[in-house]
């Protein structure tokens, strides 16, 4: 039997450990519970609009075509997503929309048919029967059973029928039918393009063997330029936006490195004997780091206006603080021996820094810069959303207007690809430069 006091002290130790082991998760749980109350999680569950999530998901992978009748002017228009810039011309109207007299017959598939007949709209729903909306005086609704089912939202001035196949909305001024389709519409070519409406195979064969669609321009370059200037997706503008974002990160990161390097010497103990100077420089670093690029963006947009330069300068200022701190730490860790070796040959100060210090710190600095390059690409996206530049602006505004979720999806994918690409690039450069330097 071990001595009693030894046993007791060990058991006490284990009890203490047990208490810690229980207390830490308990504390975390208590904190999380407090936050759940403070953030009103219960209320959130009620407020959450999962139907919005459904809209978002559906819209991200599909598009809708609007068939709109202006009830005052009595005109019919078929357009993608209701956009003025994607209106089907007479010859392009898809065959599920057929004009008949003062109206149209719209086939929504699966037996669902909507008929426009002057101010009257009839929606023939299989297994339910025809629903008639009359817009000649307010909006009146007639349904087979007499009682309104819950997929019809009606008031004296407006009615909406929502089914799995589409949606019909009628007011006194206009009637609109929506049909949903999978995929991103007109991603490659817009309606005004000569390639519009072709299948992938047709486009390919036109490019390879077809007669020139436009005199004097090869079909390939025509296809490329039509794609680039696509009115709906604006690939050219998006590419510029991505470029601007990367540019902000690039200029900001390396510009900051240039500014920070000399200042870092002033903050490093082994290069600056004056405590006060060091202290001052360090506090400056802390300050610019703490202010954050966001605030700088706002401050600088007064002087430089909106645009990528403002974003780049904001990143530059913040990172000067971060780099200053990191570089001065790297400088404080340099080995004095090579410096002394260089000094013993009669080298002057410039030469001592060049050969004694730079070769030692360069790999460290370079690797830090490249790390920042990647994370700044992400910051630049956010800054762009605030100063007005780059992919960040396009993305946030597309989200905030809550309409073009397919574009939002497109931009998000582009941002992810861009950040991952910058990450791989910086990783690759790090391996190349630092091994071979």
């Amino acid at each position: 039997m071990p001595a009693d006091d030894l046993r007791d002290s060990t058991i006490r130790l284990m009890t203490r450990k047990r208490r810690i082991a229980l207390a830490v998760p308990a504390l975390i749980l208590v904190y999380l519970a407090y936050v759940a109350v403070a953030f009103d999680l219960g209320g959130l569950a009620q407020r959450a609009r999962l139907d919005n999530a459904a809209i978002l998901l559906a819209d991200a992978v599909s598009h809708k075509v609007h068939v709109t009748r202006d009830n005052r002017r009595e005109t019919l228009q078929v357009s993608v997503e209701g956009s003025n810039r994607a209106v089907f011309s007479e010859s392009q109207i898809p065959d599920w929309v057929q004009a008949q007299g003062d109206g149209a017959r719209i086939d929504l598939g699966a037996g669902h048919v909507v008929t426009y007949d002057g101010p009257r709209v009839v929606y023939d729903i299989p297994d339910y029967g025809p629903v008639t909306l009359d817009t000649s005086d307010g909006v009146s609704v007639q349904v087979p059973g007499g009682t309104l089912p819950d997929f019809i939202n009606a008031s004296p001035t407006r009615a909406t029928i929502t089914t799995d196949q589409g949606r019909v909305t009628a007011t006194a001024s206009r009637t609109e039918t929506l049909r949903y389709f999978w995929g991103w519409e007109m991603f490659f070519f817009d309606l005004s393009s000569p390639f519009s409406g072709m299948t992938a195979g047709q486009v390919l064969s036109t490019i390879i063997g077809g007669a020139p669609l436009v005199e004097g321009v090869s079909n390939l370059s025509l296809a490329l330029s039509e794609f680039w200037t696509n009115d709906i997706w604006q690939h050219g503008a998006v590419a510029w936006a991505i470029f601007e974002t990367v540019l902000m990160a690039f200029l900001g990161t390396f510009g900051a490195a240039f500014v920070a390097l000399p200042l870092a010497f002033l903050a490093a103990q082994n290069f600056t004997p004056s405590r006060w100077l060091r202290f001052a420089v360090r506090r400056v670093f802390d300050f610019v780091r703490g202010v954050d690029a966001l605030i700088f963006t706002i401050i600088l947009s007064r002087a430089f206006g909106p645009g990528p330069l403002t974003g780049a300068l904001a990143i530059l200022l913040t990172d000067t603080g971060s780099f200053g701190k990191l570089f001065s730490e790297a400088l404080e860790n340099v080995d004095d021996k090579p410096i002394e070796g260089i000094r013993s040959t009669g080298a002057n100060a410039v030469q001592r820094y060049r050969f004694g210090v730079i070769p030692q710190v360069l790999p460290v600095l370079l690797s830090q810069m490249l790390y920042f390059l990647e994370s700044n690409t992400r910051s630049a996206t956010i800054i762009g959303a605030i100063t007005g530049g780059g992919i960040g602006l396009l993305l946030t505004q597309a989200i905030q207007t809550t309409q073009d979720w397919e574009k939002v999806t497109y931009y998000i994918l582009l941002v992810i690809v861009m950040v991952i690409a910058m990450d791989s690039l910086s990783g690759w450069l790090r391996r190349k430069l630092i091994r071979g330097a």
Partner: protein
Amino acid sequence: MLDVRSATKLFGQKAAVDHVSMTVDGPAFVGIIGRSGAGKSTFLRMMNGLTPASGGQILVEGRDILALRGADMRAWQSQCAMIFQQFNLVPRMDVVSNVLHGILNRRATWQTVLNLWPRADIIRALEILDRLGIAEQAPKRAEALSGGQQQRVAIARALMQDPRIILADEPIASLDPMNAQIVMDTLKRINVEDGRMVIANLHTLDTARRYCDRVIGMRDGRVVFDGVPAQLTTGVARDIYGADADFNESATSTAIPTDTSADAEYAARMLA
């Protein structure tokens, strides 16, 4: 040629080098011995100008080099090469560049900063490396070399300076016996063939006895012995090192034992 007059270095109250005086006429191989903290390194660093002196003079051909400042001091340093225990090379640069650093003082700053060395300089550096038997290593990075090779690069850098005096601060302290011998042989060859003065701090008596023309013993910053190796008896050594009767010379020896047959046998068995 070299005339040290009462050279002194104080660190605070403490005299690391305390009124050291000596004269060396020709290109001798001078060894300085003494226990740790005796002031050997400080004395060499004063001579090279790495540590400013507190007093005294060191006259080289009549000029007091302790009084030099700025560009003059750097010019002196370029004629007085220094070799360090830890080699003090630039580890990430290649061997030739490290050797070329010996003439930093004689080339324009902008030229050196951009690494634009004249072809003739590069060729001379390679010749020096060849003379020291490490020309093959020329394109490698210094950090990729073994300790002995690195020390030879450091010697090459010293030779590149074309110095009149070579100072060596425990040049073989971090080397194994094999490499230590190569490095000391090299230093001796330079001393004899080129007629350059070598002053080396040494931490083992037998090395001093074997290679030096003259040995100086230091203790607590003062010169306590100055003579030829033959005068360096065990009794004198005890005085220098402040050791008592237990003092056993072989404990400090780094010489390669002449009879290594036992080891070889063992190694062969292990490798079998």
